[in-house]
């Protein structure tokens, strides 16, 4: 596959990259930083925010690194006076139509726009023109949408159609007033929204936030616990955001080997059970019509006694185990081992393949 390799120059340094790579991919591979906003590794390149604009020799305008494929012999410059000027201009224009209310914004501290404003030292105050003044949208039970904070990068729209394949949101309006919305601007709960929160996971600003986590703590107060989702056999990696011993939010782990940050409604929003008062905290033994709390020793003794009884009467093949895909691999292994060595039966299965 030698012919698939292409040689280009990035900032004067010769770099080998694959055919079909974008300039951005090629630069990232050799550690040359290029700022992005509308880019998400999970999505098709878009080229909307123009922040990744770079200079390519013999081309008079700037080209977006994310969508431009590499060509043999291409000479790319990623930093220059013009490029910096344009990037500053872009961030500044973005901020000129943004509430800039970082002090009470849910996203403060992990906001891409905030980082860019800091990096380029601009605040957009030189324009002073019209800003969107749109109401906050609360109809969705899981997602709060603050259109005024939207930078129209289109990531929510693209993840909804490219990854989730739901197509709940798309562009509405034209020109300055273009923004993502549901069809006919209906409440999301009335649309075909799956409430997966993928749009929230990709939103670079505070425009889309998890309703359940709002006001529950700032980024720097949270402890991020990396874990595996317990809902199904896929085993998505996620972060529990813990503040003061309480899980207040679930966020994406973009380097998760199984899911690359993608989650469904259960993994992202189904964490209420963790701190539920109705949660069963001790084994229950049925006596007559009702359940009675017992100790683990009592419970396990009872189970062991009854299994022995069944095996004695009907043989080893009469028992087996069906384990849950909500268990980890290690737990499932232990159960299989237990059934084979203790029950001496091969009747063991798991629901994960169902």
């Amino acid at each position: 596959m030698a012919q698939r390799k292409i040689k280009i120059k990035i900032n004067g340094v010769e770099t080998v990259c694959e055919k079909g790579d974008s300039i951005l991919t090629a630069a990232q591979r050799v550690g040359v930083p290029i700022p992005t906003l509308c880019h998400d590794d999970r999505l098709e390149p878009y080229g909307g925010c123009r922040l990744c604009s770079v200079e390519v020799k013999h081309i008079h305008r700037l080209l977006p690194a994310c969508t431009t494929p590499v060509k043999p012999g291409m000479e790319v410059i990623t930093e220059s006076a013009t490029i910096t000027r344009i990037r500053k201009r872009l961030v500044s224009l973005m901020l000129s139509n943004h509430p800039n209310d970082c002090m009470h914004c849910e996203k403060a501290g992990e906001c891409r726009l905030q980082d860019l404003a800091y990096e380029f030292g601009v605040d957009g105050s030189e324009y002073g023109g019209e800003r969107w003044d749109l109401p906050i949208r609360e109809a969705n039970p899981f997602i709060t949408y603050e259109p005024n904070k939207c930078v129209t990068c289109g990531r929510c729209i693209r993840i909804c159609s490219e990854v989730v394949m739901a197509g709940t949101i798309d562009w509405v309006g034209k020109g300055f007033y273009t923004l993502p919305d549901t069809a006919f601007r209906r409440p999301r709960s009335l649309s075909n929204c799956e409430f997966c929160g993928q749009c929230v996971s990709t939103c670079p600003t505070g425009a889309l936030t998890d309703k359940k986590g709002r006001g529950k703590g700032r980024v720097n107060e949270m402890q991020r616990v990396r874990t595996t989702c317990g809902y199904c056999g896929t085993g998505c990696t996620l972060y529990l955001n813990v503040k003061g011993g309480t899980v207040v939010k679930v966020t994406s782990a973009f380097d998760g080997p199984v899911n690359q940050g993608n989650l469904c409604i259960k993994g992202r929003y189904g964490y209420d059970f963790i701190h539920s008062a109705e949660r069963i905290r001790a084994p229950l033994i049925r006596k007559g019509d009702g359940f009675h709390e017992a100790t683990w020793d009592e419970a396990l003794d009872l189970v062991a006694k009854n299994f022995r009884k069944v095996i004695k009467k009907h043989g080893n093949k009469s028992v087996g185990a069906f384990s849950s895909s909500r268990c980890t691999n290690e737990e499932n292994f232990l159960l299989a081992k237990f059934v084979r060595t203790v029950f001496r039966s091969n009747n063991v299965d798991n629901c994960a393949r169902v």
Partner: protein
Amino acid sequence: MGDITIRVCMGTGGLAAGSSEVLREFSSRLSSRGVRAGVVKKCVNKTGCRGFCAKDVLVDVIRNGIRTTYQFITPEKVSRIVDDHVIGGAPVDEWLVGPEYHAFHEKQTKILLKQCGEIDPEDIDAYIGVGGYEGLKKALSLSPFEVREEVKASGLRGRGGAGFHTGLKWELCSMSPDKVRYIICNADEGDPGAFMDRAVLEGNPHSVLEGMIIGGYAIRAHEGFIYVRAEYPLAIQRLEIAIEQAERGAFLGKDIVRSGYDFAISIKKGAGAFVCGEETALIASIEGKRGMPRSKPPFPVNRGLWNRPTVVNNVETLATVPQIMTRGAAWFSSIGTDKSKGTKIFALTGKIKNTGLIEVPLGMPLREIVYDIGGGCGRNRKLKAVQTGGPSGGCIPASHIDMPVDYESLGDIGSMMGSGGMVVMEDTTCMVDMAKFFLSFTRNESCGKCLPCRVGNMRLYEVLERITGGKGRAGDIDFLVDLAEDIKISSLCGLGQTAPNPVLSTIRFFRDEYEAHIHEGICPARVCKAFRRYVVSDTLCTMCGKCFRECPSRAIAWEKKQKAFIDVKKCTKCGMCYDACQFRAIL
């Protein structure tokens, strides 16, 4: 009595002026008089004579080979024309067109527009009768390579705006390894005031189909799409008729004129977004997505419709191709300049006497277009500038009136060919206001995908609004220039990259007008309302009372033989009195 043909203009302009009734009246009047005459739908349709479409309904009476053209014909006038002229042989002199009708046409070189208005666009035989589909037959007798070479040799460049070499585009597309290819005809003519594509589609739809089939053959495509805006119902209707006729005549479909080549054309109606004239947005729209452009490269010739190699050509470009095939590349390249070959249709509008569509060889000096064909500015006013290239173009000041109109010269002066809009402005046009007008259009038509176009153009517009509103600040001009330059180099598609052109070119040539607005508090052209004082001049007022009658706020006091007086407290500065006063007595 001999051979008699009567042609009634049935273009959009004609229809609006009531040509259907005129046509019906002619038919019934002639049959009741027992005269056998051919009554033909004439699609003059602003073709070369928009000014005369203003004088619609236009009717040609061809009697024994002599053509007489009438203007302003209504059904009531029909009987006298039939009696006196058709039967009696004496034309009705007072209804004939004036000398300007003929002067208008003399300087033009009509290639594309030649048959528009002459043949019935709804009759394929009329097209074949004037040599139609001969170019296709010739092309099919050659190899696709030879067709591409012929078009390359002709020097034909895209008429949609950017001026890319058509033959080269075809060649690039045919080099792609993918065997499924498409050709698209871009008929999403969106520039305000431009209607050249519409004229060709309505007046001679078969020429576009023929060009498309030849183009399809040249790139070995078997399917083509015409993306036409839904606002052109007559064009769509005539295209549908033309496609059906061409299919029946074996010019479309399987085994075209027994050459073994298959080609099909479908029509896709656009929903009116200006940006869908941009080829990648157009492709997205055909695919059923929102019409938003994507970054190039990759170019459509490599990855276009449904990711297949696709050629997108403009209506005018494709309509030119059959002529090149029939008459040869050498003939075509003999017209025009060194780098800009052939003729181009311009929509001449604005403050000019003869507005309309004109077709001239590229490289014609602007002066000849404005003065010889256009008849100069009205009411002896002074020419100020000519805006070319539509809302994305730039203005050419009167001092450059002798420049040739071709791709390179227009680009050098900071404007562009665009689709061929040409708006003439005289001294009553405020250049700041004009730039604001064009920007308000492009700002609204931005698709919203890329940031510099979406927000940047809005910010540009706001500064222009501030300046024309009398609130301009020192430094605003430099701010505009810097922002405009940044938008140009960082925007995604042609719309954003060219939207600031009117601002930049007016600042380049009319900086003094901007300065007058900002520093002196005046609008030199007296257009921007914020600078008007709304007082009646003692010396100019003729005491006619027109302003008094027009004022909706009753802010004007007037009595017979008295000068008018405007009460500043009641005045809402609506400008009705200013527009009404014929003596410019309101300051």
